[in-house]
């Protein structure tokens, strides 16, 4: 066990954990906005897949990863718009519309992949950007400050979103809409518009989350490559108590433990690999059960809004 607590191992965990956490951060922070406004979007996984595909396809065909990122963001917004129409305007049961959106994204991204690409190929994605001075800090510098831009963006998104939600008027409106839409409505807030904005913003970030895999971290597209990450991202929103910093804590915990369990296997520590793989899931539940303070969920979460009710 001692060998696990050596410097190279700890630095390795730090490095891999940061990379693993990146897609979760984009997707889960985006979902935080949607849920804060009162909409549960279970379709994050499907949006991520569409984002991953479109980011990769446009990035490869144009030779410009920025265009790929833009495409992923736009497709994410479109998927968010679809979710909004069904769940907000049509007031559909949100649990089920999300599952429909997931299936749609899963199927469409694979179908497009099959018809436009046909085989797995790799791409030259976003390159690591070394931040001068900071990256020269002994030991941790290279690990923390030599990543691609999307990794930095994911981590910057957290304080930005926290500030936006808690300090700006628009953030206040979002929270009001998720907490008590009728009251917000009487105060002149356009509940429907705020919810559309938040779900589309969540969709955009989920699309970018997918692109962070296909054009920045793994640099290829394969069918169903997110493999359940979207659902974990939704779970992380609950873990984080609908706060960006809480989401960050959850994403880091999950990712660090995942990186840790791989080291446990690499170093040949004798436990069955299946139990090692379980660790992040078990610890996330335990951490929420015993270590953190529980937040109240937005009171109007999953409840459709209609003017003049109550």
């Amino acid at each position: 066990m001692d060998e696990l607590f050596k410097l190279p191992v700890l630095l390795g965990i730090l490095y891999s954990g940061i990379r693993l956490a990146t897609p979760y951060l984009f997707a889960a922070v985006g979902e935080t906005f949607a849920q804060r406004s009162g909409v549960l979007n279970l379709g994050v996984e499907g949006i991520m897949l569409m984002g991953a595909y479109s980011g990769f396809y446009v990035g490869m065909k144009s030779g410009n990863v920025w265009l790929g990122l833009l495409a992923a963001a736009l497709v994410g917004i479109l998927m968010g718009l679809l979710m909004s129409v069904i769940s907000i305007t049509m007031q559909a049961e949100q649990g089920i519309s999300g599952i429909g959106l997931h299936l749609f994204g899963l199927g469409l991204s694979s179908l497009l992949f099959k018809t436009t690409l046909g085989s797995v190929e790799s791409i030259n994605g976003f390159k690591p950007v070394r931040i001068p001075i900071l990256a020269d800090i002994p030991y941790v510098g290279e690990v923390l400050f030599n990543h691609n831009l999307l990794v930095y963006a994911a981590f910057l998104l957290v304080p930005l979103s926290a500030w936006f939600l808690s300090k700006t008027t628009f953030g206040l409106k979002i929270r009001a809409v998720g907490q008590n839409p009728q009251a917000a409505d009487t105060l002149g807030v356009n509940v429907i518009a705020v919810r559309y904005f938040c779900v589309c913003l969540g969709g955009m970030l989920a699309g970018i989350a997918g692109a962070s895999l296909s054009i920045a971290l793994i640099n290829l597209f394969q069918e169903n490559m997110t493999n359940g990450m979207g659902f974990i991202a939704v779970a992380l929103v609950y873990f984080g108590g609908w706060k960006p910093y809480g989401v960050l804590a959850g994403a880091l915990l999950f990712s660090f433990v995942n990186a840790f369990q791989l080291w446990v296997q690499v170093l040949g520590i004798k436990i069955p690999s299946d139990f090692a793989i379980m660790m992040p899931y078990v610890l996330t539940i335990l951490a929420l059960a015993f270590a953190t303070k529980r937040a109240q969920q937005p009171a109007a979460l999953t409840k459709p809004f209609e003017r003049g009710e109550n």
Partner: protein
Amino acid sequence: MKSTLSRMLALVMLVAILAAGCAPAAATPAPEAVSTVFKVAIVMPSSITDMAFSQSMFEGLKKVQAEMGGESAMEIAYSENLFKVPDAAAAIRDYADKGYNLVIAHGSQYGTSLEQVAPDFPNTAFAWGTSVDTFQASGINNVFAYQAEAQQGGYVLGTIAALMSKTGIIGETGPVDAGDAKLYIEGFQKGAEAAKPGTTVSVTYTGSFSDVSLMATAAETHIAAGADMLTGSSQSVVGAIGVAKDKGVYWFGTQWDQTSLAPEAVLASQVYDWSGIIKDMIDSVQKGVMGGKAYTLTFKNGGLVISYNSAITVPAEVKAAADAAIAGINDGTIVP
């Protein structure tokens, strides 16, 4: 509202059943004119573009098709991503029902279903793998079985990796510690340790056949632990290959030639060439033998091929050691 919905659903069903009852003729295909086209159908658990297990078989079929003279001589129908066994069972039965001459169930998990379907279609030949059981013990004579001796190629690639490694550390990463992946990974380990005693081979599993991201992280972890040679099994390894490329270490592929993904990093691959087996099965069926044979892909019968990447120079003595390993496996002096 609640009860009307359920009533509505009952109504839909009724309509659907009626409609189906009224219009079955439209959907049943007209009886085919008697022709010499050999019809093969294949049912697969993953996608034909998975760069691994399913793709190797599909490309094998296409190769045979080309050799036989294209679509006019051999027809291929496929159903992919059927990881749900009941769906695969329905597909197997359906293809048999439609008169396909050979129906391939390309997944060991399909065995139980095949054992139930095959007796109902004595004039159809079935094949399944990876397995060695043709069900002859239960009185079924129209099933072929096939499997790959994944450990053979693993052994040879392990030999190459150990001799090429500068750090003496090799990383292997698989999906689940079972089946074909387990055979390959254990063979690789054996080969590496035999070629250069003292080589460290560490193994990780991600617990999933499709978790590309965790597979990439596993590769990162191996590299951080000092590995400069990596290998792995399943369709999710594409993630690890990307990491190998970025970090400048070598990758060894299995099941399918993975060179195209990273020409600068994939040093060699064990390729499953099923075409020989497929041809033999088709020959048998045309002669009226519908099953009963168990095939294995080995170096000896040409079913396993080590495909080197021409863009990377492998020292002659390493290639010689690999050839010696193949020879040893073929004459039985080496048991991977």
